[in-house]
């Protein structure tokens, strides 16, 4: 099976989910000051969900820790991020 859906792709990745989110989205800024919502498109794990009220919901559990959202975001302060605690987060095995 060569062609795969995004869900099928994500099922091949191992995550050890920590207790605290390492990325925090200030949805207030997304709602009031951002009309682009670049994070929704660029995130390779598709973790940014646009809400009806114009805000953004973020799931940190299946994050690749790549930093693309932070780089792509054009609103200062909307995304705060650091790395997950040691040993937590994504664990690649084959890449």
């Amino acid at each position, binding site marked *: *099976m*060569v*062609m*795969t859906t*995004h869900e*099928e*792709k*994500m099922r*091949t*990745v191992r995550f*050890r989910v920590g207790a605290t989110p390492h990325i925090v989205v200030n949805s207030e800024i997304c709602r009031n000051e951002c009309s*682009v919502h*670049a994070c929704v*498109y*660029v995130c*390779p*794990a*598709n973790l940014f969900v646009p809400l009806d009220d114009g805000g953004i919901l973020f799931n940190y559990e299946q994050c*690749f*820790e*790549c*930093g*693309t959202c*932070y*780089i*792509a975001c054009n609103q200062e302060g909307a995304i705060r991020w*650091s*790395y*997950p*605690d*040691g*040993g937590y*987060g*994504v*664990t*690649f*095995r*084959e*890449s």
Partner: protein
Amino acid sequence: MTTHPANQQFDVIVVGAGPAGSAAALLVARAGLKVLLLERGEYPGAKNVSGAVFYGSAILNELIPNWWEQAPVERPVCRRDIAFMSPTTAVALDFRCAGAGFATAPYNGFTVLRPKFDRWLAAQAEAAGAFVLTSAVVDDVLRENGRIVGVRVRREQGEIYGKVVIACDGVNSFLAKKAGLQREFHPHELSLGVKEVLGLDPAIIQDRFHLTDNDGIAYEYLGAITEDVHGGAFLYTNRDSLSLGVIGQVSSLVERRKRPYELLERFKAHPAVAPLVRGGKLREYSAHLIPESGWAMKPKLYTDGMLVAGDAAGFCLAAGLYLEGMNYAMQSGLAAAETAILACQKGNFSARTLSVYQKNLKQRHVSTDFRAYRHAPSFVNGPRLQNLYPEMVAQGMEQIFRVDGAPKRKILPLAYRMVRQSSIKPGQLLRDVYQVARAYLW
């Protein structure tokens, strides 16, 4: 210098156990110094993704003779293809080398799987005497009297002191920023790579890619493959799998509102790619940022008590013909290690002493290469060279080869007509020819 508990005091602290960090720790340990190698992943390589072709075989061979006999390598790269794509056609330049250091020792490059290769390399540093601590995130540097004297690991009593800190913490280097050596990046300076490893029988791989025994091939694709997103794609052969992926400039993904994994699916479905990946079974999906702007995003490389190497220093050469990172990571890690060793011998860790790093980088051909190709990234990673011209070449070949009863056009009028029909202005074309020449020829 203040004294600290002996168990928390090192000569050198290396942050990040990728190829830069592990090579640095290995060299420092061999010099008989006390070195700590910190890695935030469960094991070295757990967070690391690249294509991955490692073109640093000769470099590593100087450190560990015949390293490929013991390391987890996939296949030596003996064929390289560069393909120009339109949505339905492809024109490829096919390079094969059966001997002369490509298919024979010391080899030119190997495909590797980073979690396995990086883990092995860190183990070599450990065997040489480095202390390796995994599951350890470094949040900040420690300062005393304005100079960096160690790092803060996210845990109880996480202050660890070292005479020199070498930051090899990757493309997002929080440490280089904390130390005030690196600025925030612009979305046009970085590209996102998304990748899949597809399991495939070794016999099928050999037949399908015309490979002798364990030889391997590296394909790189330019042109319409990423639609209108500035970028390209790659496909490499491993022992019993393929590594393939799509690379897109972050700013361009944002502008075009493209999802990277959808581009990956389109790449696999391209008529020139689909037969190569047929029957492959997805083993792992991954993603990583690439510091593609080279010289333009280089941080200040040293300060009192600290050096920066590898992706953290932007030492990744992404310039069309070249797509190399691990070799420069290793070379810069070694140059940083040589600098740290010298500083320890002198007992002086000031920026002035550490400035020898620049000379060491030159001697290891890192800064010289990046300087020589400083004009390439901004231009090569732009829309015309990565996408438009390659696509035009592919379309041009289609018109040359097409026999449909219409009169044959000679190449110059054909090219003239194609340029006229495209969005390129003749003046622009001339300027681009000059830019390519300046980037690659002299």
